Every structure is written in structure tokens, then in C-alpha cells.
């Protein structure tokens, strides 16, 4: 669009200024303008046509099988139980795989393809929740729980070892005396 106005404007200006001025000025200018307007219109229509054709047939990009498969494996097969679009033999999954490839071929990035499905199905369509916002709790909770557990174990261990070191085995003095005597009696 920007191109078409850029091209038509200089033409319109030069046409209007080049209009004959000898006789009826108003009429001549109008006539000149009319002619330029037609030419401009033709130019704009032509450019629009070219633009439409260009946008209607975007250059199909080669789609990498690996990328298509990776995206499909992250999407939930909507008619299955716990199967990804990549793994499901269902017709619906096949159609969704086709849509993934089609969008990639049209120039969408993998993230845009995922977003396309999320916008229609919600986050539910993703087999793993995204690592953002409240979802981070899901990713962070196990790590936090393990860290807490390790901390508790460390705390406990320290207490045990400290007890072992701090309190020497208390042996009854009478008993140790008896052991000593019996040992002495040994030949």
C-alpha cells in the first residue's frame, strides 16, 4: 500500500502542473486532473492486484519434519486420552498435524503455531504447562520440596553427629571396675 501511494503521488502532481493554462484555466485543469486521476487509479488498481497476488501466495517454506514432529508431540490429541498429536493414529490428530505443517509452510514460527492452538483450545492443548506465571509453581514446587527435604535431613544428621560426639558412653563405675577385675583374673 505504501508503495502504491508513493508511486501515484508524483504522477498526479506533475500531471496537474503540466495542464495547459492558455485558455479556460479551470476547465483545462479539471480535464488534466481527470486524465491523471484515471491513470493514477489504473496504477493503484494494478499495484493492488500485484499486492493481492503476492499476499495470496506466500512463498511456501520448506518444513522440517523434525520441527513439525516436535510441535505435534507437544500438543494434546483432543480426542484421545493422554496422547500427543504426534503419537495418535486418529483422524483428528492427522488433521492437526496437517495444520501444523501448513502453518509452518506459511512462515509461522513454532511458537506462533503453538499459540494458534492455544488461542483456540486454551492452555489445555499443551501437554506440558508453560513455564510462566502461576504455572511456575508446578515447576518450582518439586524443586522446593526436595530442597526442604535435604535441609531437614542435614539438620537431623548434624544433631545426631553432635549427640554422638558430645555425650561419651556413660558406663557404670561399678561395672567397669568389675570388668577390670575379671580381666586381671584371666591367665
Amino acid at each position, binding site marked *: 500500500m505504501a508503495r502504491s501511494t508513493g508511486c501515484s503521488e508524483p504522477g498526479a502532481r506533475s500531471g496537474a502542473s503540466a495542464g495547459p493554462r492558455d485558455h479556460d484555466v479551470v476547465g483545462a485543469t479539471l480535464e488534466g486532473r481527470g486524465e491523471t486521476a484515471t491513470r493514477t487509479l489504473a496504477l493503484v488498481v494494478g499495484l493492488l492486484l500485484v499486492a493481492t497476488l503476492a499476499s495470496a501466495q506466500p512463498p511456501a517454506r520448506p518444513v522440517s519434519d523434525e520441527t513439525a514432529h516436535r510441535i505435534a508431540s507437544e500438543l494434546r490429541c483432543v480426542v484421545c486420552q493422554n496422547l500427543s498429536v504426534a503419537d495418535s493414529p486418529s483422524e*483428528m490428530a492427522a488433521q492437526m498435524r*496437517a495444520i501444523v505443517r501448513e502453518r509452518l509452510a506459511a512462515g509461522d514460527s513454532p511458537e506462533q503455531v503453538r499459540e494458534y492452538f492455544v488461542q483456540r483450545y*486454551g492452555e489445555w492443548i499443551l501437554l506440558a504447562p508453560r513455564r510462566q506465571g502461576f504455572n511456575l509453581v508446578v515447576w518450582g514446587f518439586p524443586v522446593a520440596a526436595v530442597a526442604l527435604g535435604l535441609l531437614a535431613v542435614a539438620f537431623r544428621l548434624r544433631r545426631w553427629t553432635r549427640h554422638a560426639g558430645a555425650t561419651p558412653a556413660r558406663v557404670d563405675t561399678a561395672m567397669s571396675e568389675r570388668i577390670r577385675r575379671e580381666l586381671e583374673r584371666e591367665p
Partner: protein
Amino acid sequence: MTHRWRWLLPMAALPVLGLLAYGFVLDPRSIPSPLVGRPAAAFTLTAFDGSPLALETLRGKVVVVNFWASWCNPACYDEAPVLERAWQTYRERGVVVVGVDMQDTPEAAQAFIRRFQLTFPNAPDAAGKVAVEYGVYGVPETFFVDRAGTIRAKHVGAVTDDVIRGTLDRLL
């Protein structure tokens, strides 16, 4: 930890139990559609009778878009007469019922249409694109599109007379 506070330890399990209990009261099959409140995606299909069926041409009317399949028994069989009845009752008041047949064969679908004598426009969605555009994950699913072309409600499962009447009266 002193002996007095030892009873606190099992309490840590309570929030987890609470979360699990909350999970039990939810219906795992009810998935809120992000499309409610958003503009209905335009589609152009060819109806079984050969006529073009485009949502855009129905702007200004309240449109009931129903996704179905002939193999979807009993839900689709239950709701087919309901939809036909709604179409007959409400068409004078500016309501159009549109059937989109998915994951189906033309023969089985047409037999279904004859069986229930459906007179509202029905079209096959052979490539499944319209179904994905509407985030359909099973049949039947029904979308209610208002006069401005915005999706105002979604119903999963067979629609009943009450559901249709309640929703349409709200939109008309």
C-alpha cells in the same frame, strides 16, 4: 523440634489433601473455551445440498453452529430433533442453525440427515479445519454466535430444548 510441636508435622499434609479433594469436585471433562466472547472464525463450506455455506453471510442473525458426526451415538442422535425443532421455532426470529459434520463419511452423514429430516444447512468439514478453528475436541459441541458475530456461549454434549431456549432468548 520439641515434643509439644511434633503434632504440627502431619498438618503439612493437609494442604495437599485439600488440593486433591478439590480436584475431585472438578469435572475433568469441562474445559473452558477461550473462544467465548471472541469473534467467531469465518468459514466457507459447501453444504451437502451443494450450496455454499459461509458464516459471514449470516452476519446480523443469531447463529447456532453445531458440530456433529453420524457415528456420535447417542448424543448427536438425541440432539438432532432438538436442533431441527429450534430451527423451525426460531428461524422467523432471525436464528440460523448450521450443522458442521466432522470426521465422517458423506454417505453416513447424509443418511443421518435423512433419518432426522434435518432442514437446516449442514456441511461437511472434510479437512477438520473449521473444527480446529472452533477448538472442538469432541462431538457434539454447539456454539452460539450473536448478531455481531461474537461467540457468546458454548455447549459441550447434546443440547436440550432448555439449553437452546435459554441461550437464544438471551441473545435475541
